[in-house]
């Protein structure tokens, strides 16, 4: 008995140390979200199931703003296999779709799932995901991705991760900075770096295995890269002046960055193999915030060469620079969706800073947010949602808005400020 209680305590402690730092609040969903019932999954293994897979999937779908959950209390039965499915039970509570499944523990953990359409009374999708037991949450998100894609036609981006910087303010001492890696739902946070020196510009390698960021730990800014599997960490730059805005090229071989060693901020390319440094821009104005077009053939960057900050495009083949934003007196820090069409940026209107999306095909700029100090947009790998930072009171919080403006949610921290979110690319499981 005593031993059981002790292990229970240990388990509780472990669980609380893994508790999410971010909370999720849905601010706006679709007007007619699709009702879907995610039935508690069956469990075949010793003891209790380590995670409530159905709960994880349900939260993912609700967070997308496109689905209305069906409460477990309203369910008339809890089927875990097709033979236990009675469609009338689900039509009675107006569930349009029903997801059932089972989790099986072997040397690895396996989730089998099946999706039913209650109107047509048939199974419309089924699948299996397998992986190490420790990755059960990530496997659950892959089930969400499959369901989301089947019902919306758009790839899901639940089985992805986030990087963000949190800051604990301290009026009597220096602020405390922390760089954190978490699942896309804010769960399983892992601290990658912390200390009293600023941490900025976290970004992902295209394969999702590495991150880069700026740290002031040497009392001067420098760019570092860190391998998420091995923990290996390397300082990439240490030049006089600014060293910031690292951005991996889509092929992973080159990093664009900003240095002011030659007098003022310009964009440079660092070859990560040869370590050769190439200067791209040469202008007395501020050139900063480089980001790659998905084809790797050109970069976008912010420059005030025209007097006020605007977005420009640098073509690597022709070496020509072309301005691409013309609406408003301030457009900065562009991030491009994987389709190469939508560009999320910070746009100033009436003295307020909003997140906007510029469509490179139609040249139309759409303002997505109504708050006034929005910054650091980062686009989900499926291109559907922009994650960004905004202010709530004195603290910075993360918030997200669908690219079509239909869905909004916020992710405030339980404590302190969170800023500079970076959504991972699709990570190969």
């Amino acid at each position: 008995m005593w031993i059981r209680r002790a292990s229970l305590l240990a388990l509780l402690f472990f669980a609380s140390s893994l508790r999410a730092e971010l909370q999720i609040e849905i601010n706006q969903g679709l007007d007619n979200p699709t009702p879907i019932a995610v039935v508690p999954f069956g469990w075949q293994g010793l003891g209790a199931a380590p995670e409530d897979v159905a709960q994880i999937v349900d939260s993912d779908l609700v967070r997308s703003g496109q689905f209305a959950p069906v409460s477990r209390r309203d369910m008339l039965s809890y089927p875990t296999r097709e033979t236990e499915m009675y469609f009338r039970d689900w039509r009675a509570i107006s569930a349009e779709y029903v997801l059932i499944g089972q989790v099986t523990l072997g040397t690895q953990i396996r989730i089998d799932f099946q999706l039913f359409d209650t109107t047509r009374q048939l199974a419309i999708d089924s699948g299996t995901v397998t992986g190490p037991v420790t990755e059960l949450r990530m496997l659950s998100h892959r089930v969400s991705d499959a369901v989301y894609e089947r019902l919306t036609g758009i790839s899901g981006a639940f089985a992805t991760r986030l990087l963000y910087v949190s800051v604990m303010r301290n009026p009597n001492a220096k602020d405390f900075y922390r760089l954190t890696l978490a699942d896309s739902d804010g769960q399983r946070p892992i601290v990658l770096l912390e200390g009293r020196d600023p941490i900025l510009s976290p970004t992902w390698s295209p394969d999702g295995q590495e991150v880069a960021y700026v740290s002031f730990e040497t009392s001067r800014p420098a760019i570092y890269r860190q391998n998420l599997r091995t923990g290996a960490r390397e300082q990439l730059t240490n030049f006089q002046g600014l060293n910031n805005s690292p951005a991996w090229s889509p092929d992973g071989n080159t990093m664009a960055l900003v240095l002011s060693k030659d007098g003022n901020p310009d964009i440079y390319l660092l070859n990560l193999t040869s370590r050769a440094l190439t200067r791209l821009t040469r202008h007395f104005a501020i050139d900063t915030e480089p980001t790659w077009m998905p084809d790797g053939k050109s970069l976008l960057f912010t420059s005030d060469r025209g007097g006020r900050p605007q977005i420009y495009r640098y073509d690597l083949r022709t070496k020509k620079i072309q301005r691409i934003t013309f609406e408003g007196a301030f457009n900065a820090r562009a991030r491009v969706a994987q389709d190469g069409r939508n560009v999320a940026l910070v746009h100033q209107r009436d003295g307020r800073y909003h997140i906007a999306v510029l469509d490179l095909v139609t040249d139309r700029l759409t303002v997505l947010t109504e708050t006034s100090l929005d910054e650091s947009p980062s686009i989900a790998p499926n291109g559907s949602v922009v994650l960004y930072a905004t202010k709530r009171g004195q603290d910075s919080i993360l918030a997200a808005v669908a690219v079509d403006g239909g869905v909004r949610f916020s992710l405030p921290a339980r404590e302190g400020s969170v800023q500079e979110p970076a959504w991972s690319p699709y990570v190969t499981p």
Partner: protein
Amino acid sequence: MIKPTLYAKWISLVFAAFVLAACSSNDTKEAEAAAAAAEEQAAQEAAAQEAEQQAQVEAQQGREAAAADVGTVFYFEFDSSSLTEDARAQVDAHIQALLGNNDSVRLEGHTDERGTREYNLALGERRANAVRDYMVANGLPSYRVETISYGEENPVAYGSGETNWQQNRRVELK
């Protein structure tokens, strides 16, 4: 470097010794008198020298006190890296103090929270560089001035609104 006054003191001492040696055989009294006079003169010069040094130290202390009085934080207008009239007067006081010593300084540029973080890093650097350039133009060797930008990190005032923002648009001298 040997200062002129010190040099003169040495010459007079050497001269006195020479006179003393030359006159030792027959004119001892005269020589002693001359030596005493030279010694007295040297003592007076040393005292004057000391007083002058003291005055210089006090003047430098005054300049450093004046620099301390004006503070080590220089404020800027929104989206501007030009020194305001007030900031220029403050920096002038620091230049006067720094020209009289060998201290090195670090200028830390900051911005308010508006705009993007990385663009603000560049703005903060522009502000720190503006103070550095003004110092160098007024005679301070550039190797004694280090600049760094924190952008909007490490704000002094945490809230939003102009009252807070204006406290954060600054260069700190350290």
